[in-house]
């Protein structure tokens, strides 16, 4: 830690450091060094102002609880993580909900994707894979379905309108 940064830390002791300086200090790669310097200066202040720290029955000067606090907080975080891990296998009654939700999301994604891009004809690969082998009647049905789907989306949500807009504006092969 260079002198400039230590001077900032000293100003921070006196409540005279700006937010940017505090941020710079806290992002210093060697936090141990920062904390050690801070600790020493706080100790000096404690010695200069013996009142608060020794106002009780036990002289609290030089007390150090930081390791214990860290340990307690890390331990609690670890406990929470392991508790979460042990809860990981969800009860059977919830599993189908996740599966159903995933299926709904998938179908929505496919539907939205179809509305947004498949009909545009911009991507011949997609068109080849998805629409290969449709006869004229099937094409017409598919177009009606896509148009209705896009219209429906455009009423309910802003995102859907994009699909509809693209669908009606594209003079693709299907129209």
């Amino acid at each position, binding site marked *: 830690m260079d002198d400039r940064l230590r001077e900032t830390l*000293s100003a921070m002791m006196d*409540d005279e450091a700006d937010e940017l300086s505090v941020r710079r200090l806290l992002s210093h790669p060697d936090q141990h060094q920062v904390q050690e310097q801070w600790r020493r200066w706080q100790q000096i*202040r404690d010695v200069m102002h013996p009142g*608060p720290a*020794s106002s*009780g029955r036990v*002289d609290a*000067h030089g*007390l150090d*609880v930081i390791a214990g606090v860290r340990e307690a907080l890390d331990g609690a975080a670890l406990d929470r993580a392991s508790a979460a891990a042990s809860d990981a296998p969800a009860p059977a009654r919830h599993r189908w909900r996740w599966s159903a939700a995933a299926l709904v999301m998938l179908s929505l994604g496919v539907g939205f994707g179809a509305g947004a891009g498949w009909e545009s004809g911009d991507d011949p690969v997609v068109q080849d894979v998805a629409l290969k082998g449709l006869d004229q009647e099937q094409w017409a049905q598919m177009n009606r379905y896509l148009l209705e789907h896009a219209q429906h989306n455009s009423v309910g949500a802003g995102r859907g309108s994009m699909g509809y807009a693209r669908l009606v504006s594209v003079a693709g092969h299907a129209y």
Partner: protein
Amino acid sequence: MTQTGLAPAIPLADTEGTRTGPWSMTPEQTQYPGEQSDSQTDLQLVRKVRNGDRSAFDLLVLKYQSRVAGIISRYVYDSQEVLDLTQETFVKAYRAIGRFRGDSAFYTWLYRIAVNTAKNYLDARGRRPQGSADVAEAEAFEEGARLRDPASPERLLQREQLQQALSQAIAGLPEELRSAFLLREYDGLSYEDIARILDCPIGTVRSRIFRARDAVDRHLGPLLNHTESM
């Protein structure tokens, strides 16, 4: 945490409770003269902690651990209990920091948590806060507190050595450094006020105080390396 263990996260109403006891000094009475009660640095650090910066919380612990222990030791005799409850106070503060609204100074908020942690601890053990509500008696008690502390002889010696070394260090400072440093530490003046008094730029004040602090630190040397777990 050897004895008290971790209590579950406490509701803020509890941490900011209005309980007052025989040993309840106000937070302002335990504030150093050189410190503002509404420390901007504390608020900056609290914001960082809320954003998940644990090193910011470490700085708050280092800053306030002695004072919190001092508060708790007004309620609890045993030094190990004081250590545990001090630790518990900070753990509770960390967990509740999202609910710290900044209406009061961080130290005031922490002070309340410390007091309630100590009182809850005594309540849970069916013990009343020890001591008398009488202020004069309390002061007399504090006068003799060091003598009653079982660890006092050794600790008192360390303290005396530290204070002697500190006096020497301050006396050995060049005049301009000493003036700035003492105006800050003992009179609690802002850099701006000190600059006005010493008739120099604020940057010079900042630099002088830093150099003074650094010189005192170097003079105290190994005496400060000795950190205790009580």
